[in-house]
């Protein structure tokens, strides 16, 4: 409970004192870093703790983001007639004169409910994706998660592209009080606003309008320093509590040796599914935050995005929460810092990735956390994660990778 209260205080401080100090670009970067930390740490639960191999994490992000975005967008329209932000002081991205005095307003309640629902739906999907781990292991499980992520992306792409219906409030217009689409058209007399009635107002049909391949824009911007800090703190606390609990020891034992842990009485299937559900929940929450900060776009939630998160987890060190956090910060900021290289930016970044894997295969921290660096005397080599332990790099394949991670799939 104490860490959560500290987190709450931190979140309020970040919102009220840090946020006004930053310009829009830096603030956006910080929010992005926070969201990526949540995603990297949640993926650590599956890939790092449990040693499973999920490369479809962006799929959960998409599910959570679209669910949360659709809830706030369409509920806002139903309640207020528009999709503007109706939050208080703690959910404003920029503090200006007309910001309400209340810290939390009705819009914030809606937002919190939406983000949580996004997380819960994503967790449900995570349960479904985790189930095949009954039969599949290693690479094959990875392929299934990859396939899942792509299916989510294509399905979203196929949703109806027309978004942004709103209730018309124009007393002299024939469609007053109805749900309409609005757009502007260039005519010889100048710009003209055109309204057309939404053909079917059944809520179920409306909810399938998620922007299709154009992306789901215009969700109200609720994501602020307060919410992101709070979510990051909760994610970190949960991850640490899991790691150092019996529950988490079961995850770790599956990573180290699945057969041995089964012999010790760990229900491996159940724990693998639990890891998936937990990771998917937080990824869904991160998606909800992302949807109310930038717009969701199916082109950005493909497997390339999932790979970003895998890179964060491996760079940080498999199973290290603080490592994943640091890696998330680096992976988000480094391409921005390298911007002065212009065209060569991504080439340098990819080379850095390859060299990192060759010269420091266990990631930044290995299985350790940041503070272990001080507690353990230097020079003493820590044991790597189960599959990444003794690595004979000089001689030709000393051990097949399949055998190294406990049995061929």
């Amino acid at each position, binding site marked *: 409970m104490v860490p959560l209260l500290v987190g709450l205080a931190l979140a309020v401080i970040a919102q009220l004192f840090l946020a006004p100090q930053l310009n829009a670009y830096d603030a956006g970067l910080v929010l992005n870093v926070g969201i990526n930390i949540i995603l990297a740490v949640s993926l650590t639960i599956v890939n790092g703790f449990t040693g499973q191999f999920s490369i479809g994490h962006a799929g959960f992000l998409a599910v959570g983001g679209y669910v949360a975005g659709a809830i706030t967008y369409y509920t806002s329209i139903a309640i207020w007639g528009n999709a503007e932000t109706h939050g208080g002081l703690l959910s404003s991205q920029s503090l200006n004169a007309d910001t309400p005095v209340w810290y939390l307003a009705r819009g914030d309640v809606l937002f919190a409910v939406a983000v949580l629902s996004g997380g819960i739906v994503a967790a449900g999907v995570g349960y479904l994706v985790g189930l095949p781990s009954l039969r599949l292991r290693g690479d094959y499980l990875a*392929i299934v998660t990859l396939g899942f992520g792509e299916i989510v992306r*294509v399905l979203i792409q196929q949703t109806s592209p027309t978004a942004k219906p709103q209730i018309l409030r124009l007393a002299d217009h024939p469609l007053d009080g109805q749900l309409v689409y609005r757009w502007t058209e260039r005519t010889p007399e100048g710009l003209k606003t055109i309204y057309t009635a939404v053909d079917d107002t059944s809520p179920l049909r409306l909810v399938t309008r998620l922007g299709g391949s154009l992306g789901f824009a215009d969700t109200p911007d609720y994501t602020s320093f307060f919410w992101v800090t709070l979510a990051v703190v909760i994610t970190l606390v949960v991850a640490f509590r899991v790691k150092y609990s019996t529950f988490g020891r079961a995850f770790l034992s599956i990573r180290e040796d699945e057969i041995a842990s089964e012999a010790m009485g760990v229900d491996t299937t159940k724990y693998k599914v639990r890891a998936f559900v937990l990771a998917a929940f937080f990824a869904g929450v991160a998606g909800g935050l992302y949807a109310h900060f930038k717009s969701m776009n199916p082109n950005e939630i493909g497997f390339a995005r999932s790979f970003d998160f895998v890179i964060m987890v491996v760079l940080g060190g498999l199973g290290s929460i603080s490592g994943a956090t640091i890696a998330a910060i680096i992976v988000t900021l480094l391409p921005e810092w390298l911007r002065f290289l212009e065209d060569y930016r991504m080439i340098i970044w990819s080379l850095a990735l390859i060299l990192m894997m*060759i010269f420091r*295969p266990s990631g930044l921290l290995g299985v350790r956390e940041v503070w272990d660096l001080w507690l353990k005397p230097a020079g003493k080599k820590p044991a790597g994660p189960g599959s990444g332990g003794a690595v004979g790099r000089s001689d*030709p394949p000393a051990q097949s990778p399949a055998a190294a991670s406990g049995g061929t799939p």
Partner: protein
Amino acid sequence: MDQLLQALKDSITVGSLYALIALGYTMVYGILKFINFAHSDIVVIGALFSAVAAGAIVRLLNLPAGEAPPWWVGLLVLVSAMALCAGVAFLVERLAYRPLRGAPRLNCLITAIGVSLFLQNTGNQQVLFGTDPHRIPDLIANADPLFMIGQVKFRPLDGVIVGTAVGLMFVLNWLVFHSSAGRAMRAVSHDHRVASLMGINVNRIISMTFVIGAALAAAGGFLYALRYTTLTQPADTPWALLGLKAFVAAVVGGIGNIRGAVLGALIIASVENFGAAYLDSGLTDVYVFAILILVLLVRPGGLLGSAAIEKV
């Protein structure tokens, strides 16, 4: 009836394209147990190089408008694309993958992603392929169909694609199952420690596998360029999706199994084309991945793959 025949024809042409690419995935996986995510970028290099080289040769020949270049132009482009991609794959294996032999597989995966990003973004540079779409000139007189059944036209291009693919597969079949290098390859795939005890140079065999896979991928890229003519920049999503589908084909057929890759490619192409013809054409990718998940759940090793026995 026409619709059925058309879908069948497309399945076979597209399927043979996928098969060429899938073979590279499956051979590398069979030997290193590692998903080579950079393979699709080799295909891209093959396709874009074919477009650029064919364009240059056709311009050099200065043909009158509307006339197809002589037959050897296509062959020359194909062979040089295969050689180029084989060289690239050799360097990639030597410099990026070999230092990681025996490392955990997540590291290999990330290295593969790094290589993939590197190839994409290097290819995107203006000195190489740039970001503008490329167009391959017509290398084959394709206007008149060879023959027609009902309304379905069988064009020379379809014949060239299927013929090239089948020819290369026969060469590969001979190479893997009837040559001493192929026997060494199968031995390494079976157990590389014992293979190295038998005097097989494992590293050389692995290099060879990468080179052969890349040459086939280049041929796939060349044929893809002939069929779809307009090619977008190397970092574009359709390329990644093409590679992903070929990979799915390899998995469906049983990854590590060469004949399985061909079977899987035909299945994936059929699912795509028949799904587009008879169901919703917007959801072809969903069908592909749904089939993948279904096959893996029913037969975790793929259709022709052998289920591994777990030893404690």
